[in-house]
């Protein structure tokens, strides 16, 4: 009986109650630009992320150069040189805190809202991004879909190509974090 109670207590305890950082480095990030004339898709599996449950904070980072899978090398070149200016702004980051208390999360699937500064193209925008966290004893997998309006990040699209690039880019993210 005691064992059972102990087992119940243990199973209801949040795995994220453990102190320290949860880290992940092989996250995937993919984006889609669905414009009237051209569909652009690219992805990277170099997304890194850190979670500090004791402070409810997080940070994610991707090097824009690592995006692959464009329709053509020319498209990729335009992406880096004209829009993202990857040489000048090599990183895109999102860091901040969760609205919900991560440390209280039990095993299972939860909807979370991450509030923080999204920095793309060197321009910071405060965002609240909804994500799903799958919590198990040993890891947390975070997935999220969100839009990035290019205007917010001062990514200007020349009038000539505006039918080729969407106003908003649709982004899909998935990353698994483990305690370190």
């Amino acid at each position: 009986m005691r064992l059972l109670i102990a087992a119940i207590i243990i199973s209801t305890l949040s795995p994220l109650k453990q102190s320290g950082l949860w880290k992940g480095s092989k996250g995937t990030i993919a984006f889609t630009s669905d414009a009237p004339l051209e569909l652009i898709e690219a992805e990277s599996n170099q997304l890194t992320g850190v979670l500090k449950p004791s402070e409810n904070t997080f940070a994610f980072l991707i090097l824009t150069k690592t995006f692959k899978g464009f329709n053509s090398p020319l498209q990729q070149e335009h992406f880096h040189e004209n829009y993202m200016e990857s040489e000048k702004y090599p990183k895109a980051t999102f860091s901040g805190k969760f609205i919900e208390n991560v440390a209280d999360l039990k095993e299972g699937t939860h909807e979370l809202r991450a509030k923080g500064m999204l920095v793309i193209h060197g321009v910071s925008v405060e965002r609240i991004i909804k994500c799903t966290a799958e919590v198990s004893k040993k890891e947390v997998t975070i997935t999220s879909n969100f839009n990035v309006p290019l205007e917010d990040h001062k990514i200007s699209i020349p009038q000539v190509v505006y039918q080729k690039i969407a106003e908003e880019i649709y982004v899909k993210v998935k990353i698994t974090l483990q305690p370190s």
Partner: protein
Amino acid sequence: MKHWLTIIIGSLAITVLSAQSFNYREVDLPQGIQASDIKLLYTDNNGFVWIAAKQYLYWHDGNGFREIEVNKEIAGNEFSSLYQDNAGKYWIGCINGEIYVLKNNGVEAYKPEEGTPAVAIINWAEDKNQQLWMCTNGEGAYVKASNGRWYNFNQDEGFLSNETYDIVPLNDGVAVATDQGLVYCTFKDGKKNIEVQNKSLGLSDQIVKDLHIDNTEMIAAFYEPFLNTLNFSQSVLDTIATPSSDAKKILRSSGIIWWLGENGKLFRKAERGSWVQFRPDQAGRSRIHTFTEDNEGHLWVLGSRGILVLDEWYSHISTSESVTAITNSPTAVWYAQKGDLYQYDLSTNSSQKAWTGSNLILSLYTDNWGNIWCGTFDGGLLRFNPETSIMESYNEQSGLANNNVLSIGGSKRAIWVGTLGGVSKISLDEGGKVKEVKSYDQAHGVSVQYIYSVHVRDNGDVYIGTDGEGVLKWSGDRFKPISGKSQDGVVLDVSSDARGNIWWVTSEGILEGWSVEEKLVAVPPYPEDPGKVAGIETLEDGSILVMHEGGVHRWIPETGKWAAYKKSFGLGTLQPQLNAHAISDGDLIYMGTSTGISSLSIKHLPLSTEPKTLIQGFRLFNKPTTKTQFSADENYFTFQYVGRWYTEASAVRYKLRLKGFDPDWTESKNAEVSYPKLPPGNYTFEVVAGVDGNYPEEEIKSISFTISQPWYARWYSIVLAVLVLAGLVFFFFRIRINTLRQKQEREKQQVQAQLETLKSQVNPHFLFNSFNTLMALIEEDKEEATDYLADLSDFFRYILEFREVDLISVKEDIRIVQTYLQLQEKRFGDSLVAKIDLNEEVLESFIPPLTLQLLVENAFKHNIISREKPLELEISHKGDTIVVSNRHWAKAQTDKSTGYGLDSIKKKYKFYNAGQVKVEASTGYFSVYLPVIHQNNN
């Protein structure tokens, strides 16, 4: 009178216009500013719209944005919030937490002792106790207490989260939106009170992104796609789903909710309507960043392409044909084009033809069961059932007064129609089925055939507007004039307000009323000709809307004023059809026009269509001044004012005057006036803005000021000058009087001296002695005696000759002395030794007459003269002084001396200012020193 029929039937213009549900226009941005530079939009207490762009502030005066000069120290800072407190002070919050205030048309840093926050200031609010609050993104909220100090409300003391989104005044304190719920704060007598409300306490979400508060409720917008309406006891009243998640801004105005998402999409929703997106760019490429509502009911929307101003009061649904009749049910607007009946669905915003007919439909009515009654031209009365699409027909055969039905009205169980041949009543049973059709004509008081309007009140009272008999009321068995006696007006439309006052409009466009107190109410016509009249509607607030060609005019009995909704309200070229209007829920009024259906949102229509006047600049020599007292040389004044009327800024005119300079009003289009070289005085500048020559008295704004007199014209200067003058006059007279007195004195003295001289010269002893001498001489020597007598006579002649003369030459005076001495020589012989030794210069100088003689005579008078002690007399000079001296052998008893002789000489010399006469009596000599008088000026 068939004239009106011609209009009804003849005005079937065909136009095609694309439908639009939002009216908006673009606002010119300041030079060098792009939409992406603009960070905030704000409406101040006077209704002026402000923007912050880069490091500049601008406000819109109706014609364009005006820049506020900012100091250099502000450069680099980005404004995050702007607020005007109740005292009129503008507060500016920055991204970095710094605070600035507007001062003298410039910006100045505000540095409280406590320091400024280190994070962005999101918004401001003022509570009932005039305490200013601000909320921040990272430090919670701050309040400025009455002692001027700032107090912080933060997470450590139960404030849910330091990251806030909005703050509004609520009850005695404020409500703050945070990312962990709502926080209610009060600050009283130095005591903080915090209450919280979050998801577990009834809110739809933790993340409260924006708040709206009005007279009745508070609305919270969340990250999750919901709104909560709350009462002031913080109970959630209602939850409304929003088009998407992550709200940015929420506003409710005149029953319309505006919702802006972080995704840049702006939606509006009427109370029972659905969300409709405002998409200024059909391609949807323009994101909307923020908005503000001004005091005239315009929504100023900042999009990525610029600023747009939305007018919510008007919308137009275009149709292919003229809309001749209109009615509405809760879900749809029914309208007629020619003989066809259409249904405009309010939820889908689309039109559908419900019935095709051949007779022109002139009137429509929706009964209690939702049936649509159509009054036609020459086709009688039709009843359409929307559910079954069955059309029933009633005509002259069924008992209808006439087949031309101009107007339909009704109550629960009865439909009344006005025709070209009298009035008919259609009675209905409980199920809405027609029971009976009855008609009323001359026998029932309807002496004219044409009935243009039928109005049935909820209580069943029936009023009709007739062609020439005014308004008649159904009395149970017949129609009677409402005022008891018949009138002769052609009444086009009749209506009544909630109180029971009856209102109607005549074919001349005159609005009249019959009050519940049974009095005729006369309404002054609108100042300008509004064009042909098409009908009236009474509104919930008791005002009356009159539809004209030139727009819609609203008579507000409460204020006794007209409000005009014209061109700028979208109603410039309204072609309303006679009696084709309907009103829904006291909000939207639908008008059938020759181009479609125009609808006006009554709730959005401002009650006052008058500009707000503000004097915003008072300049002295073209520099802003706050003084009201000026010196005489400060005399060049400029006034800058503005009539805020965003609705139609180009129509704004000003009426102004400068009391104290010109009491008459002048009209001007300019927003500035200068008065150069104003003379000293008291002045009051008055200005008021108006439209259509209509200048609202209560908006007159004024500045009073005084220009002082120059110093020399002030009262004390004048008094001083008078005093000085009086003093001068006084002294002048005193001197003059003194002079005169002196002159008089001198003359008196002179007279006295002459008298004395005469007296002394005619000394009886001298005369006696002389006569004795003469007697002796006559015996001794006759010839000598003759000479002596001649001398004596000469001497007296001299005395007479010179006594009136002021000065004579010394030479002449010596001659007198010599004559005198010759006379005395005869008597004293050797006992007299006289010596006169004066040079030519002295002889040429002047002397008061007989001075020397007087002195010589004195010598005779005062000395013993004998052979042993002869009188040694000498008249000589020492430089510029004549010396008369004698050897002094004092007599034991002298002749009585008055001492006057010597004294009068001294006085004479003093008077002539000729110097001091010195007398020396020593060592046996008596000498008198007489200064020489050189010029005979006096």
